[in-house]
Every structure is written in structure tokens, then in C-alpha cells.
């Protein structure tokens, strides 16, 4: 389990804290969605939860990040990195820049963790096929489209088989097919016991993927709960979050004062389409 215990974090040189008194639990086998308006602190939360802030990027942190009950501040960084994977929004930031093929790129992480060679190869093919990018194995990572790079970056994380994974808008550059592949791969990883934290604007994606959702506003957790409840909560629209399509449609119908009979037909049809 990965837990934030009353974490307040301030970037180096910043006057105000970017996160204030944030407490969150990320349980094994669970996908936790983080939603919020731009600049509410979502990316900062991803940096703190992965252990990169403050250790790699500076700043000051009050409170504790706990990995299976141990304070991360007391663990060596390589041990933290071996247990917590992080995926950034922009895949160009993620790719190593030193490999000449997609295969090497995806194998790079597990090799650095000292995973035995045969295992590295198996993990690399598993990750590439899970995201249907195995045909790109021999291509130069630098010459792929943005969407392909994003899939390769995520394949690199899958090959690490992390126990905890923190992702910042992992599907920002993907088409719906790529988005679905990533969601399926993450769901499988969680089913195998990993805990996954996904920072995301796409609430439709979280509706099908997340078990729980926390809403962040001005650096604080505004509220959290089971995914379906949070996504249907009328407060999220006021906090700059676009509700999922079925919620918006139902709400638009209510606002248009649709009579009871067609409203019931509509609700049934929405359920039928989602199922």
C-alpha cells in the first residue's frame, strides 16, 4: 500500500504550497483516479506520490509518504524507484533518449533493475503485445508519432512490473483505441495486485477503470469516494471537471424538463449503451 499522510509540499522558490494536508491511501489491487481543474495540484500529487518530489526535484515536504508502512524518506531512492513507477503526460520526457529501438527502450527499465536477461525479454514482449506495439519493436523511438511514443512509454512502465504505479494523464495523446488498450493493460496490472494512481481529465476513462476517485481543488483533497458516486456528484462540475458523458446527458435531460416517460426511456437507453 502507498499512502500520503498529511502531506504539504512546496516547490523550491514558491511562496505557496502546491499541496496542503493531503492524506490518501492507494490500496493493493486498486485503481485510484485523481481529478481536478488545471493547476489544482494533480501533477504535483503525482510527483509526490512517486517519491520524485522532493528527492529528485527539490522543494520542501511536510508529512509522510509511506510504502507498505515504511517512511519513504528513509529508503534509498533506487529502492523507491524499484517499487513505484511513474508515467508522465508528455512521452518525450519519459523516453530514455539513449536507445535505438523500441525493444531496447522498453527493456531499458527492467535491465537497470537487474532483472535476469530471459525475464527482461519476456517482459518486454508481454508489454509490447499488451499495447499492440510489437510491430514497432525495431523502430527508432524518436521517430514515432506522439501517440505511438506514449504507448511505448507505458509499455516501458508495464515491463517494470511495478507494485505501485503513478500515471499523469497517460492517454493524453492517444486515440480511443489506444486509450482502451492502456485501460485494459492497467486493469490487468491492478488485478495482479498492483496499486495504480491515475491523474486524468478524461472522466469517461475513469468511469470504467477507477475503483475510487479523489477530487483535488487548490492543493487540497475536496472529497473522495467510490468512482461512480464521485463522478455523479454535482460538485465536480463546479470544480472545473467535465463529468462523464452519461452523467452530462442525464443532467441535460433533467435541465430540459423532459417529461417522465421519455426521461425513463432515455435512462434505460443510456444504461443499455453503457452495458
Amino acid at each position, binding site marked *: 500500500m502507498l499512502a500520503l499522510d498529511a502531506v504539504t509540499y512546496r516547490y523550491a522558490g514558491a511562496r505557496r504550497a502546491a499541496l496542503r494536508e493531503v492524506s490518501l491511501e492507494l490500496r493493493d489491487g486498486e485503481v485510484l483516479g485523481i481529478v481536478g481543474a*488545471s493547476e489544482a495540484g494533480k501533477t504535483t500529487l503525482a510527483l509526490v506520490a512517486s517519491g520524485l518530489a522532493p528527492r529528485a526535484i527539490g522543494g520542501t515536504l511536510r508529512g509522510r509518504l509511506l510504502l507498505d508502512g515504511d517512511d519513504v524518506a528513509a529508503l534509498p531512492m533506487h529502492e523507491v524507484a524499484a517499487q513505484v513507477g511513474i508515467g508522465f503526460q508528455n512521452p518525450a520526457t519519459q523516453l530514455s533518449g539513449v536507445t535505438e529501438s523500441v525493444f531496447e527502450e522498453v527493456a531499458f527499465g527492467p535491465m537497470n533493475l537487474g532483472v535476469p536477461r530471459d525475464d527482461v525479454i519476456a517482459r518486454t514482449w508481454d508489454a509490447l503485445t499488451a499495447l499492440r506495439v510489437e510491430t514497432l519493436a525495431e523502430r527508432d523511438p524518436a521517430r514515432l508519432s506522439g501517440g505511438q511514443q506514449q504507448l511505448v512509454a507505458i509499455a516501458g512502465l508495464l515491463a517494470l512490473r511495478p507494485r505501485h504505479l503513478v500515471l499523469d494523464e497517460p492517454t493524453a495523446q492517444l486515440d*480511443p483505441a489506444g486509450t482502451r488498450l492502456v485501460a485494459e493493460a492497467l486493469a490487468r496490472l491492478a488485478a495482479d495486485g498492483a496499486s495504480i494512481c491515475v491523474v486524468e481529465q478524461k472522466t469517461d476513462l475513469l468511469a470504467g477503470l477507477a475503483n475510487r476517485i479523489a477530487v483535488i481543488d487548490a492543493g487540497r483533497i475536496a472529497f473522495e469516494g467510490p468512482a461512480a458516486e464521485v463522478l455523479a456528484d454535482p460538485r465536480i462540475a463546479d470544480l472545473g471537471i467535465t463529468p462523464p458523458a452519461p452523467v452530462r446527458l442525464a443532467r441535460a435531460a433533467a435541465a430540459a424538463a423532459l417529461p417522465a416517460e421519455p426521461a425513463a*426511456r432515455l435512462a434505460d437507453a443510456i444504461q443499455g449503451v453503457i452495458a
Partner: protein
Amino acid sequence: MTELVAEGLVHVYREGGVRALDGVSLRIGAGERVALIGQNGSGKTTLVRHLNGLLRPTEGRVLVDGTDAATLTVARLARTVGLVFQDPDRQIFSPSVRAEVEFGARNIGLAGQELRSAVAEALAATGLTGAASVNPYDLGGSRRKLLALASVLAMRTPVLVLDEPTTGQDARGVEYVRAVIEAVTAAGRTVVAVSHDMRFVAESFDRVVVMRDGRVILDGTPAETFAPDSWEALRSTFVEPPLPALVGSRLGLGSTPTDAALIGRLHSSSSA
């Protein structure tokens, strides 16, 4: 105002490589709102980069108001077609938001009062007036993207090309993008946008062009493109119709690409 025509465009990035564009012909009239959709790698971004001369066709040509774009200077094209990249960090390099918005407009020859009002308008349209003196890198991803939009908006080009304008935007950012598209096209300027966001496409555009493997496979209004008899073609390029289209079809209400269209049909079906 400006008409754009693509005639038999073919583009090959490397000799012997795939045809990223494989014979695209399109006419885009002044004031149109055109969305380009289709799976990653279907040629959308390659196509829009031909519209402002960033890429030259391997075969075929682009006509800007009847003139072959290949014969126009880069400067002339830049005054005609403004391109906003998907990743704002590719185009932001000034020390303040205001300086960034001024840069392109100044470069294409705006000055004095015209420059000041173009910059003020662009900042207001993107909600950045209060952030004019901020360093662009102190803005979050959503506002950096709006800044990239503002910079191109200030150039007052007759054609605005947007690559994935709603990606990474929160609800407020999406509203700014929608309002900008409304205002720009109401003034007779053209907007062409690449997008994977089908709700945004259905609600903010008059015309949807669907691409697959470097070709145009569908071209029509949102009601035509998202009608049930187009779904097979849409799904062949991994596009899923927006929710109201799926729900409307299930209810036998025809093509209802937006929440408003669907609710309108439900209202009239219940009063009939």
C-alpha cells in the same frame, strides 16, 4: 476571407515509406468549422501541416484562394493560415505571456494600435488577461495550451488550424476553446481542427472529415457522419460515435450526435 483547396495530396515522409497522405482532395470554404478525425497515424496532422506550408506535398497541390501554396512565400502563408500545435511547448519561448502573444503578431507586421488591440483581444478570448505578465512556464498545462492558441489568434489569420485543442484541458479550458471557435467563424474566418474528442467535434463543428490510412473516408455534417449507417466506417478507423448518437439510435430517433439534438427529439416524440 480565404478558401483552401487540397487537390490529390500525397505525402511520403521518407522515400519508399508509407503514404501518410494517399490522395486527399478537399475544399474548405471561408467561415467553415471543419473537424478532422480518425485513428492515430491516419494522416490528420500531416494534412493540416500542408495547409500552412509546413510540409510540401509529394504529389498534388494546395490552393489558397486559387493560388498554388508552393508559389507563396512562407511569410504570406503564415499571414493566412495560423497553426496551433498539439504540444504548446513546441511554440512557447517568450519570458511573459504578453510577449509571447505579441511575438507572432508583430512578426507578420502588426504594429501600434492594431497590435495592441489584437493582443488584448486574444488574451481576453483565452482568459489570460490577468496573467499577461506571468512567465509562460509558471502556467499549468491547460493555460499554456490556451496561450499557444492566443498567440496564433492574435495574428488574425483568415484560417486557424488547431491540433487537438481540447487535450489536457479542464472544463473551463474547453469552454474557452469552444467560444474562440464560435467567435472566429462568426467573423467569417475558418477553423480546421484535428480531434479525438467526439463530443467536442459533434457540438462545435459544421463539418466532419474522417480519415483512414491517408485517405478521406467520410465527409459530412455531424448528423451525417455520426448517423448509424456511418458507424461501420467510423469504427474502421477506431472512432466511436458520441454517446447521444448511440443512445438516439437505440431509441429509434435517427441521428442525434449531440445531447441537445437527442433531447430535442425526445421532446418532440413525447408531444407527438
